[in-house]
């Protein structure tokens, strides 16, 4: 039986924290890219295309993240793909994030007055140019605060990746608890570390919100 001092616990949790951060960043960046593509599809004005994206969003917003993770992990291995927890968790979180981000950004694009679309099309810009030069720069200002706020949700969502055997903060907490039999102490630290990670992000989101409100 190995004795764990408090520092041992905290040190191991801190080591695991980097995987939480890395997975969050992976999900956020990947989800952002996929979400942007979906947004372009959604706003393109083809009815079946936007229906398809709406269905995708409905699918991922209407099912629990836990189930998506399980399906990615167990479901894809059914088709002969041996996925590591890394790939399965990254994939599921990316798709989940993209569904939410595309919906958030759609609201922001809709917030741009319709006259901007009409004015830019009267300048003979095509759809991609309209988005790139006229609409997105304006939508971005509205979009940044809620996007940063959603990052907090992604960070907390990575906790569920522990259920498919991905060793991040929560899983490390479980493993240490199994060795020390002090669940309250260990999970207290885990919760504290999540808080220290998320609180600055939500503060930042709030300050961004204030700044954009003051200017806009």
């Amino acid at each position: 039986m190995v004795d764990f001092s408090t520092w041992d616990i905290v040190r191991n949790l801190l080591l695991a924290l980097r995987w939480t951060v890395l997975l969050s960043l992976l999900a956020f960046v990947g989800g952002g890219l996929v979400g942007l593509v979906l947004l372009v599809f959604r706003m393109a004005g083809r009815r079946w295309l936007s229906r398809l994206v709406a269905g995708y969003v409905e699918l991922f917003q209407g099912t629990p993240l836990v189930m998506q993770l399980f399906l990615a992990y167990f479901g894809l291995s059914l088709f002969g793909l041996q996925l590591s927890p890394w790939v399965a968790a990254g994939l599921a979180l990316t798709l989940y994030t993209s569904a939410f981000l595309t919906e958030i950004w759609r609201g922001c694009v809709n917030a741009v007055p319709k006259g901007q679309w009409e004015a830019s099309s009267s300048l003979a810009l095509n759809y991609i140019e309209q988005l790139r030069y006229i609409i997105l720069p304006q939508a971005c200002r509205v979009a940044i605060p809620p996007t940063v706020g959603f990052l907090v949700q992604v960070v907390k969502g990575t906790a569920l990746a522990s259920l498919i055997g991905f060793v991040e903060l929560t899983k490390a907490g479980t493993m240490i608890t199994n060795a020390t039999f002090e669940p309250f102490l260990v999970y207290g630290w885990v919760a504290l570390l999540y808080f220290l990670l998320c609180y600055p992000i939500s503060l930042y989101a709030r300050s961004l919100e204030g700044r954009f409100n003051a200017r806009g």
Partner: protein
Amino acid sequence: MSQIIIVMLGSAVCGQISTPELSYAANLIQSRNFRAFESYIVVTVIYLLLAILLRQLLNWVGPKFLFGGVRG
């Protein structure tokens, strides 16, 4: 209002501390017969239907009973 749906979906996590609910049942079934994909996909579809139904219900109930000020 959509927060209600988010809480409903969040309750799926409770299965992990063996609260006997839907996702716990899924885990139980797949540990009995090792058909993980089938049990999880069925449960996911049930959650999806629940979410859609709940939203329809809230969209109907909300304007009518909660904040429908105009008609009184």
